[in-house]
């Protein structure tokens, strides 16, 4: 049944590709090249910009190929009733991440909220969406996150719920649940001239030495940026967002491919005037980092937990008491001094 699904999905991608121009590109992270084939102009226009800083030329012998299409612009739907329980698809779904995704075989991510679905095999993947124009900010900021998470895990690299920034090749990762201040901290540092890796989802290479790798050149903020952060950022990428959808920014400068991680930092919103760093235990840092990374990411499990444990136990860990955004860079001066 799973082979039937895969063959049907590939066939329908080919149908979509025959109906329109196929945009071909590739990304390269940690020496791994992933070819991207987009059938449908709107799809590439939305999915490629957050990957701008890891884009390379499409070429032969990739490590992974992702073939993607959308139904709205191609008129080609997804092949089968994938949500029919009779198919017994080995699918993971947000909110049901009770099993660790295996490193081999066929894996399916069913993103019902976004109207998207991805299938990953060992070296090929398909990504389908009904209509990319309805993607909310979080999906536009981190396209194909789950496929990439699962595939990079096969290479020993872990997607974590964290931001990262640094200077002169060394830096910190910023960990904690949504709303704890990761984006504010990372963007405040970037606005002061520090190198930016990410604000919400980054890759970890456990090393040694451990490194934080850039994946998405995006940042999301609950409210449009102000002050120094606003001056550093380009215009909002989703000015037509509805309600209180987060403001999305696509960074065009200040991004670096990777940094060596020298500390784990868990921010905490306070009413303090100036941001300060206090040492915390490895367990406190792990408790800030692991639950949101694992519970909120389908298929993450014991492997990811172990990697994060090793990271927190081998590095100094700090609580960042967040003050004004302008005071954040100074709090890291000593930690990031050469």
């Amino acid at each position: 049944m799973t082979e039937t699904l895969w063959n049907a999905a590939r066939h329908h991608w080919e149908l979509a590709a025959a109906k329109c121009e196929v945009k071909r590109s590739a990304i390269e992270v940690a020496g791994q090249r992933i070819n991207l084939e987009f059938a449908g102009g709107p799809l590439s226009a939305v999915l490629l910009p957050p990957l701008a800083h890891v884009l390379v030329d499409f070429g032969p012998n990739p490590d992974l190929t992702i073939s993607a299409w959308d139904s709205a612009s191609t008129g080609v739907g997804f092949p089968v009733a994938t949500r029919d329980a009779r198919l017994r698809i080995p699918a993971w779904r947000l909110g049901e991440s009770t099993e660790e995704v295996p490193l081999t075989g066929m894996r399916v991510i069913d993103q019902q909220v976004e109207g998207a679905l991805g299938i990953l095999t060992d070296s090929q993947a398909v990504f389908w969406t009904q209509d990319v124009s309805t993607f909310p900010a979080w999906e536009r900021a981190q396209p194909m996150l789950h496929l990439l998470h699962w595939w990079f895990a096969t290479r020993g690299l872990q997607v974590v719920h964290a931001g990262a920034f640094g200077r002169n090749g060394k830096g910190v990762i910023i960990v904690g649940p949504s709303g704890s201040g990761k984006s504010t901290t990372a963007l405040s540092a970037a606005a002061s001239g520090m190198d930016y890796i990410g604000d919400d989802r980054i890759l970890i290479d456990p090393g040694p030495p451990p490194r934080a790798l850039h994946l998405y050149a995006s940042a999301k903020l609950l409210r449009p940026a102000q002050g120094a952060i606003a001056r550093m950022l380009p215009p909002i990428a989703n000015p037509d967002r509805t309600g209180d959808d987060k403001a999305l920014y696509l960074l065009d400068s200040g991004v670096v491919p990777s940094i060596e991680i020298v500390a784990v930092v868990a921010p905490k919103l306070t009413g303090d005037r100036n941001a300060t760093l206090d040492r915390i235990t490895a367990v406190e840092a792990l408790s800030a980092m692991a639950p949101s990374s694992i519970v909120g990411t389908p298929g993450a499990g014991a492997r990811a937990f172990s990697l994060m444990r090793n990271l927190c136990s081998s590095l100094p860990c700090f609580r960042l008491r967040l003050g004004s955004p302008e005071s954040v860079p100074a709090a890291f001066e000593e930690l990031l001094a050469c």
Partner: protein
Amino acid sequence: MLAPAPSVISEILDNEVVIIDMSTGYYFNMTGSATNIWQCLMDGTTPEKICESLRVRFGAVPDIPAAVDTFLEQLRAEGLIEDAGSEPPPAEPVGLAPELSQTPTGEQFQPPSFEKFTDMAHILLADPVHDADPTRGWPSTR
């Protein structure tokens, strides 16, 4: 024999345990004798062997059996442990995790306990289709 439930993952760090129950989204921290008990449970064990391990570490403290029983009931109530079939053949040394096979440390026995955190549970307990905030999206819930 008792063992961690299949939905539970854990890591021991600096003699503390961080446990995540992926079926509920709850996570737990344990210290002290609770860490020793969890370490035994990770390999599958019985209440008797847990008590034996604690006596090796803390000496012959009369409170140990009752404290272990109470703690195991709490772990069961949280769904963190479950029966895992019959007891395996004895290993050497019987019933003792290697880290615990030592003479009493002089450390005073404190009844085991855990801290429970529920702030991530909304992500798992919510229905991502119907409970997601329509504008901010998953994992933000209504």
